[in-house]
């Protein structure tokens, strides 16, 4: 065993260098944890879906709508417990930069089907009595300062109001979800209001997505097959999948972006590995005479190897630990900033493990070259400064 006291003392031999190295390691591990958290947050949406919920949409994609009368036909399929429908409203509040999702829904079936969307009983009551009522996510309410009773005017970019004005929705209440598959930044409003208003302008309403809950005991795969079978020869081909699969498909539309994030992570790793090797080589050059002395005193080659490996591991753990800590500490702020793209941003335990593994791995990898040199260095060469 090498003298352990040297680990700590050598760290402070060049304090600035150690601090810089630890800081850059911290930055890199922080970034890697952050990038991974973005990816896991996006994935979590799919992983947290209720496996008994299904989505039905057009086989041609989200842009093609399904007829209203499909709902009755879905309801008849054995094993279907409830169905509810969603239509993308595609409006904006004052300016397009204030982007958030809005859906026309049937409150009763929607709330029954999504227990993770928690709404106060009063709000449900208000929603039932007022045709123009809407409920909004807690984050959305915070962002725009909306409260119960406020009226939200939305420009119907996709569904223009027949009277050529903004649609108005009255806030009946807030909802909050603590599950990553259901974000807190959406506005839901009543289907009948949507339908009647469109009809005034002579536009027939249609449905974006039907959602199904499979009855307890029924076979999910069988229900999917049966639903697809019902619409085999209908005017619009449909695609029935589990909600998780639907989410995954939606995420795959992000394109190559997750791949780019991975590449960036790899680039960060390389940069930081190189920096750590650099530091360890400098440390080893500086400590060359010490190696000579220690070996002359009777410390073995192996213990010198261990000494350098431990030094770099120590440095990497310090930096990595700081990085992971930073990722955890900043998570609430990043979460607020990313509400729009990756709602529910959180650092998963798996990410903490990843950060720890990166930190644990970088140390020995960066230290192995100097450690090998320290092992093979003879006292004489060390004193000659080779």
């Amino acid at each position, binding site marked *: 065993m090498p003298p352990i006291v040297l680990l700590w003392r050598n760290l402070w031999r060049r304090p600035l260098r150690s601090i810089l*190295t630890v800081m*850059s390691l911290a930055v890199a591990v922080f970034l890697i944890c952050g990038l991974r958290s973005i990816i896991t947050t996006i994935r979590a949406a799919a992983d947290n879906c209720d496996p008994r919920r299904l989505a039905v949409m057009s086989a041609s994609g*989200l842009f093609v709508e399904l007829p209203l009368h499909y709902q009755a036909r879905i309801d008849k399929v054995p094993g279907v417990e409830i169905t509810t429908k969603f239509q993308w409203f*595609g409006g904006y509040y*004052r300016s397009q930069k204030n982007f958030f999702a809005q859906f026309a829904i049937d409150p009763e079936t929607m709330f029954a089907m999504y227990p993770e969307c928690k709404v106060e009983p009063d709000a449900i009551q208000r929603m039932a009595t007022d045709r123009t009522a809407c409920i909004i996510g807690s984050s959305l309410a915070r962002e725009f300062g909306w409260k119960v009773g406020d009226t939200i005017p939305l*420009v119907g970019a996709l569904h223009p109001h027949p009277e050529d004005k903004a649609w108005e929705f009255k806030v009946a209440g807030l909802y909050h979800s603590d599950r990553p598959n259901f974000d807190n930044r959406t506005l839901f409003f009543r289907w009948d209001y949507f339908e009647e208003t469109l009809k005034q302008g002579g536009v027939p309403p249609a449905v974006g997505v039907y959602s199904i809950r499979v009855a307890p005991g029924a076979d999910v795969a069988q229900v999917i097959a049966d639903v697809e079978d019902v619409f085999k020869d209908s005017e*619009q081909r449909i695609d029935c999948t589990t909600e998780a699969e639907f989410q995954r498909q939606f995420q795959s539309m992000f394109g190559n972006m997750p791949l*780019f994030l991975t590449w960036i992570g790899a680039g960060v790793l390389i940069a930081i590995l190189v920096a750590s090797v650099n530091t360890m080589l400098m440390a080893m050059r500086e400590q060359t005479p010490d190696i000579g002395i220690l070996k002359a005193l009777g410390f073995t080659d192996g213990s010198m190897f261990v000494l350098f490996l431990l030094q770099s591991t120590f440095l990497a753990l310090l930096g990595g630990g700081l990085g992971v800590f930073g990722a955890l500490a900043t998570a609430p702020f990043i979460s607020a900033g990313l509400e729009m793209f990756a709602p529910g941003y959180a650092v998963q335990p798996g990410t903490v493990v990843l950060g720890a593994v990166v930190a644990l791995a970088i140390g020995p990898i960066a230290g192995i070259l100097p450690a090998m040199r320290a092992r093979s260095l003879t006292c004489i060469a060390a004193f000659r400064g080779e």
Partner: protein
Amino acid sequence: MLVPLSYNLRSLFVRKSATLLTVLGVGAVVAIVSGTLALQQGFHHMFTTGGRDDVAVFLRPGATNEGDSQFSRDRGLKLIKSVPEIEIGPNGPLAGMEAYLALLLAPKRGGVTNVPLRGVQPVTFEIRAKEVRISEGRNFTPGHDELVVGARLVDRIENCRIGDVLTLNKTPFKVVGILDHDGQFGGEIWGDLDRLLAAMGRYGPNRVIAQLKPGIELGSPDPAKALFSDEPVEPDEGTVAARLLKDTEVPAKVCTESQYLSSQTVMLSGMLVFIGGGLGFIMGLAAIFTAMNTMLASVAARTREIGILLSIGYRPFPIFLSFLFEALVLGLIGGLVGCVLTLPFNGVSAGAMNFQTFTEMAFAFRVGPMVLLVAIGFSIALGLIGGALPAWRAARLRPTAALRRE
């Protein structure tokens, strides 16, 4: 008196391993930043090339993009007939209706994606004769269930080669040609307007495009401005745009194609610049730390030399400059390495979701002079910032102290 530059260059060479590792570290960071920028540039380039000032885009008032917009056929036709600013060609007005849809297809990377699907009329090819060409196979025949596929899609999406069949809802369409366009159309699938509308069960086109008579000014406000303004952005009184918006028969929001395209890039472009900037800042810190470490070691190893330089009469400031120069060279070489790492990406196609229309855009990384300039500038900045403190330390040494220290 200045310290000879060769003194520092030689030092970089003598300390090979440290120089090499620093250069690699800076290179990796520069590559990350310039890669992100190349993505943004590719995206920007795709949307802005081919954007024409003499082509007008008509949308339904209130619509923010062609996905939102909707006209019925009659209103579309009425619009084309009623606007005197539209150029007249040999076969009537140079104006056509377009449908903008999306088709759920399987990209080769797995999953699914919405590929833009555009239904056009023959007149579109008259208007775009100079920009759009069929590079392989032939164009679709009007009235037939045929498609041409954008060149950038061929290698990225399944079933996009000549002879393949794509099913639109229930109607099979045959791929008969490859459409080549530097701009956005190279990432789209085109077919006959009426056939696509029929197949997809849509009643009308999404937008109207028209070539304008020479010298026509529409006077449209910049639609990109409307993205960020809290107030509705209206065209000025007396302009063509204002007249069309107030039209009693077919009101329409009009702007030039260049304006339209730039408004479509703002969001993703801004996001990529933001991501690139953020990464650049965070990783730049790490790179500065690395460069600083190397330079500190370089100064420490040459404490005696510095002492000798000082004692034979060199002033501190030239010594400061000389070490700063060394750091600058270190950063610059790192920047060049970063550029070399980024260059192979030039032209590689990528796909990203356009958050404004929820369709996937196919575009290519573009490592142009702008990206390279930023990369080099960034690397020099990294070197200078990382080198300032060590150089200052070197210059601040007193000859006696420098010579005494072991």
